[in-house]
């Protein structure tokens, strides 16, 4: 029986790693990976708490939803990043600072 606190500590560490990646990386794809880290930390929390809900299975089902949504997010975000590369020839978020030509 693994205590809930341990799950939450691991997921807090993952979340902060994701936060650090989002703040420091100079590549839009790595920023996206940082966001995935944060999403996964939230999923880990949902699964850990979902253990105490055997009948309704709320935690696990919402984790499934959030994995699906993460897939959709990634597809759209990567399409946007590729478009960005086509226009600016760079995917450094700090260099792409024009909203319109």
């Amino acid at each position, binding site marked *: *029986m*693994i205590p809930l*606190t341990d*799950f*939450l500590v*691991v997921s*807090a*560490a*993952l*979340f*902060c*790693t*994701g*936060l*650090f990646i989002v*703040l*420091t990386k*100079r*590549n839009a*794809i*790595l920023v996206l*990976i940082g966001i*995935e*880290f944060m999403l*996964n930390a939230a999923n*880990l929390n949902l*699964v850990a*708490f*979902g*253990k*105490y*809900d*055997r*009948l*309704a*299975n709320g*935690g*696990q*089902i919402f*984790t*499934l939803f959030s*994995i*699906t*949504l*993460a*897939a*959709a997010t*990634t*597809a*759209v975000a*990567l*399409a*946007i990043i*590729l478009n960005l*590369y086509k*226009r600016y*020839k*760079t*995917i*450094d978020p700090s260099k792409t600072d024009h909203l319109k030509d």
Partner: protein
Amino acid sequence: MTMVKALFYLMGFIAVASGLYVAASRNLVRSVFMFFVTLMALAGLYVLASADFVAITQIVVYVGGILVLIIFAFMLSGRESLAGLQQQESRFISINKLSAVLLAALFFILMLNILLKTDPDHLQWVQKAVSEKNMVKSGDATVNNLGINLMSHYLLPFEVVSILLLMALVGAAHISRKEKSL
């Protein structure tokens, strides 16, 4: 029992350590593959939380889908994203990363503080679930119950998510199509 605990700490360590490697590495391709290791370790953690179906979904969707997409985007976004950014400063903590390190560390301390104060193992509803035997035991097969719930109790969110997924995929295809003038 102790075996499960040891596995849990091993998986948690792998997840956090590979996450830190992703954050610290300069080589972008290597950090993407380390992200793969993190996702696998997370799937292991899901198994240890007795959510086997979620673990399989994590492997199929994340590793099979998202990671392949990310690697595709890497390959398509040119050589300079692969090699050009490598000369940026190598140290994990440098002056212009200091604020990010501070923010992440302080946030971690804050969350640790809060979750140690709430003491999640003795929350009221958790205790209630334990006393009513409403918790998943290690040998339980949860997939049946998950399917029934998904098709009865959570049918509306399920359908909404399916429509949203369709919209997102059509939108992604529309955004990334070839434009004639550009």
